[in-house]
């Protein structure tokens, strides 16, 4: 399974990004890690270039909000219907309820949304999702 990952926006929170990288590799994935400070366009370019199965974007402190709204359009434009789009991290500025956050990001074009979910719990859910789909 090929996974493109990275941190979206003007965000240099590198520690979680590196841990996601190690965890995905431990689960047998081929990881293309774009690192911190990555724009949505760079993510899409990498997905096309590597023919990835999953795009896993991480974000802290609400940076993703402003950066991911256009995902649905890019997804249609590049015909990426089969790629699973996942976002995780701390997806809001300040406190926010899951019941607000999850539908919002799904409307942006994500298949799976993990707001303040423990890393391995999220990756377990992703594995299950991929299994159910195939």
């Amino acid at each position, binding site marked *: 399974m090929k996974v493109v990952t990275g941190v979206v926006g003007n965000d*240099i929170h590198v520690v979680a990004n*590196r841990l996601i990288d190690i*965890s995905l590799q431990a689960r047998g994935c081929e990881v293309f890690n774009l*690192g911190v400070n990555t724009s949505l366009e760079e993510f899409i370019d990498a997905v096309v270039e590597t023919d990835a199965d999953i795009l896993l974007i991480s974000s802290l402190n609400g940076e993703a909000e402003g950066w991911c709204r256009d995902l649905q359009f890019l997804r249609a434009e590049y015909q990426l219907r089969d790629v699973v789009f996942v976002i995780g991290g701390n997806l809001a500025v300040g406190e926010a309820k899951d019941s607000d956050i999850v539908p919002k990001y799904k409307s942006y074009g994500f298949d799976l949304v993990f707001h303040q979910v423990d890393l391995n719990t999220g990756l377990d859910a992703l594995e299950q999702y991929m299994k159910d789909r195939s």
Partner: protein
Amino acid sequence: MSLLQRERDVIVNNEYVDKFDFEEIESFIKNAPKELFISHHFKKRDRLLVQPRGGFPTYKKMFALYEEFMKADIDVLPLTVDSNTRLNDYAMSKKMLALSEENEMDMLNGYPLVTHGYRTTRKMITHFNKPVSLRHGTPDARLLVETALGSGIFEIEGGPITYMLPYSKNFPLDKAFLYWKYVDKVCAKYSQLNEPINRESFGPLTATLVPPCVVIVIQIVEMLLSLEEGVKSFSVSFSQNGSMMQDIVTSNVIKKLSRFYADKLGYSDTVINLVYHQWMGAFPRNKELSDSLINTNTVIAAMVRADKIIIKTRDEAFGIPTMQCNAQSVANTKYTLRTLKGLPVVHDEEEEANLEAEVISIMDAVLSDHADTLWRKVFNSIRSGIIDVPFSPHIINKNEVITIRDDNGNIRIIDKGKLPISDKCFAYEKSKVNLPPTQTEVINKIIHDIGAML
């Protein structure tokens, strides 16, 4: 006119700064009181110098901060520069300084040194007559350092690796090497006039489970890069690892090997100092616990026989501390040092031999790179992963090395990536760790180990 002087003329000819008078600056440095030079204080070696961090936007508030520090009997004053200046955005610094002055509110996270200029800043520095240390994080610090030296700031922190790999994703590393060559050349030039200008490297790096061998190698190569330009006083540094024994071992090895490599490459007239940083990772949100952590760190700084300690405050988890809080931390540290007597001298021969062998293996690989200059050798070594800093955001960093803590809090290498350490050393590292059975548990342990002081 020399090539360097032509470059300097271009650098200081900037729309945001007043005209530089190099002749006047030279005469100022030549006649400056010895008290302003930290190298002069280091030579005495009579105590552990205490230095906090700190910088406010306006001259008035910076002056008030220094007054508070003086009351706490400070040894070295800090001058922390705002983040716009660090990224050479002088227009934004100027705008935000004006807003700070008008509204009595801090719109910058440090002192915009280039915007204030050397003529203004020098008045403050000479008034307090204490050594001042420049703290920044700037890849291109040429104008900043010219301004600092003209102001009477005679210690310059930073370097092409230590101000780059922890802070930037894609600033070109080769450019950083050349910009820091300029800084070292200018420091060396002024060092001939009076006491030497001290250069200091930034050993904490990402402050996230960086193994001591990587820290020491980077400290040594940044030192050698400065010495080859003529710098005569240099401070190597590292931050609290999380195990007192590992701190002591790191100190003993960094002192021995920095001297060894300086002598080996023909710089035996250089003075090398050791700086210890209090814990650089995440602090507890409980202020009393933060005080306790800071106090423990002060004891360790004394145990490792550092020449200077850079301190934190109880407000670390919350942001920029108030000046009173910062000065109180200086006073507390000074008190601990005054009452701490009769420290034992500690060695661990096995640990030291292992760390020394690791550093020498990596240094051998760096120095035997095919490139013609030291900075190119180091550049190639970083690109190939011979030097690899865990958790660096920079695209050039290999990011293959994985570390974890053993039961005594020592940072150990469990995946050596491309680090050219011997099988024996790597086996020693691994033998100290009881790894959990599954990879998931290993990762959870790494997360826990990063936040060791929470």
